[in-house]
């Protein structure tokens, strides 16, 4: 197990937002966490890197690579962040500091994790950019000069830069059009094959789950209602909510799922 959450609850003093969640992710798998907006997926993912604001309390155990993340000192957790655990977010525009070039971002993170040699940093940056199909002219560009798909690919390159063990991808295709989104996911899958990293994939889109995930968990109102292998859940959902979610998912090939009528035909 690379990551296991044991009875994790997150909440303010008055209200629990994530309630008693347990899940475990094996090495090298693509684990999908599915749920509506507001179900607590993102909160849970940020709790893993200890990124929550201090007014939210986390209970339970988060074990990553045999370390209990809750008990680490700030310095130890900083060493894990970026190097062992990386994030990709939905908002690619906001993911980069606007007045720093793409290259500066790469340099800075390598420097923070102990690479003191500027030449090797640059070589590694260009290699990382090329690995996601971007050429090195982007090195000197500013974030606003890149398109959304390019930026999200840079995010992937940045996340994979220090070859982390776990990547948390939080709704990374939501803000992209479907073609760019598809390309970004294909790339992520390809890079996963090459590096063997584990991916925690947070989404509400069943098409991506069907295509990429190995296992998944469904979240509703801060609780996990169902978890297991992809085929088991997609073909034989047990919980009422999972059934509803799968029914509501858009499917292009066939007509509308039975029971639903086209709007306007009534």
């Amino acid at each position, binding site marked *: 197990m690379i990551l296991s959450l044991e009875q994790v609850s997150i909440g303010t003093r008055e209200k629990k937002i994530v309630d008693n969640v347990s899940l475990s992710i094996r090495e090298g798998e693509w684990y999908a966490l599915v749920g509506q907006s507001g179900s607590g997926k993102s909160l849970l993912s940020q709790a893993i890197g200890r990124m929550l604001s201090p007014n939210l309390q986390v209970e339970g155990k988060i074990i990553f690579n045999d370390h209990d993340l809750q008990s680490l000192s700030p310095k130890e957790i900083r060493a894990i*962040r*970026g190097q062992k655990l990386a994030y990709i977010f939905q908002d690619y525009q906001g993911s980069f500091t606007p007045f720093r070039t793409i290259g500066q971002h790469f340099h800075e993170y390598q420097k923070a994790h102990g690479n003191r040699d500027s030449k090797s940093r640059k070589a590694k940056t260009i290699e990382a950019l090329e690995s996601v199909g971007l050429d090195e002219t982007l090195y000197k560009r500013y974030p606003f000069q890149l398109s959304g798909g390019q930026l999200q690919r840079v995010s992937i390159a940045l996340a994979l830069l220090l070859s982390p063990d776990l990547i948390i991808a939080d709704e990374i295709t939501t803000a992209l059009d479907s073609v760019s989104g598809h390309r970004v996911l294909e790339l992520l899958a390809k890079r996963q094959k090459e590096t063997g990293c584990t991916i925690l994939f947070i989404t509400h889109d069943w098409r991506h789950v069907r295509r990429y995930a190995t296992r998944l968990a469904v979240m509703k109102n801060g609780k996990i209602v169902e978890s297991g292998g992809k085929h088991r859940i997609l073909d034989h959902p047990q919980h009422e909510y999972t059934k509803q979610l799968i029914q509501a998912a858009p499917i292009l090939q066939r007509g509308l799922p039975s029971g639903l009528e086209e709007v306007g035909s009534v």
Partner: protein
Amino acid sequence: MTGLSIRLPRAKKNRIQAGIALLGVVFFSAVFIYTFLYLRHDPVLTDLDRRLLGMSLQHPLGTDQLGRDVLTRLLLGGQQTLGYSLLALMVALFIGVPFGIISGYKRGLVDRVFMRIGDAFLSFPDTIVAIVLSGLMGPGIGNLVLAIVLVKWVSYARLVRSTVLSESQKDYVLIARINGLSSRKIMRKHLLPHVVGHVLVLASLDLGKIILLISAFSYIGLGAQPPMPEWGAMLNDSRPYFQSRPELMIYPGLAIVSVVLLTNMLGDYLRDRFDVKKEVQQ
């Protein structure tokens, strides 16, 4: 600057304003550098045989009631006034900006404590603090600068805090954090550059106010002490001779007005330059 609004296209007006401000800054800098290089008269040496002389080649602006060269004192006074104003501003910036960044980035308890400290300072007007300080520690320009710093740093801390508060919510700060950067690095490299523009605008507008304050306090005798030349003090010194030699008051008065006006114009220009919203509207 509303009093001077002439009907001109905004951009053109801006350019004219910037031009005047720039010229003024260059002019004053040149004058002060010149003073440093070339001083013909001792600014504090009294010579009662030559008191209250009119314009001459030797004394281009005449001499004052103690026979000191007025031009020399005016130029050196400018150095004092501007120098101490800039000093007060810089110290206020050096305290206020880090306070604001830490407060806005750390939030929670740190923020609350810092801001309450700031509120405590803000509850005294600068004039009161300056008067109390000179009452406690004796009048002097050092105490005046201290009083200005004590009051002014809070406004910078608040300005910076509000910007940082909204910026640090954005994903790029989260990303920087999740990639293992230390808080200090994030504050310095990812947040500080955001506030520089705002701070610059406020600082240039404040400079005028600080110059006025220092001159005003020197005028009532709580700032620069004689025989140190300072514009406000010079105004006060020449008050008894207003009937016979009014120009002795007019020179330092004009100097104060023109410098304050210039800093205001510079501030206005900077504000327009850094105001993104206006750019979008145009």
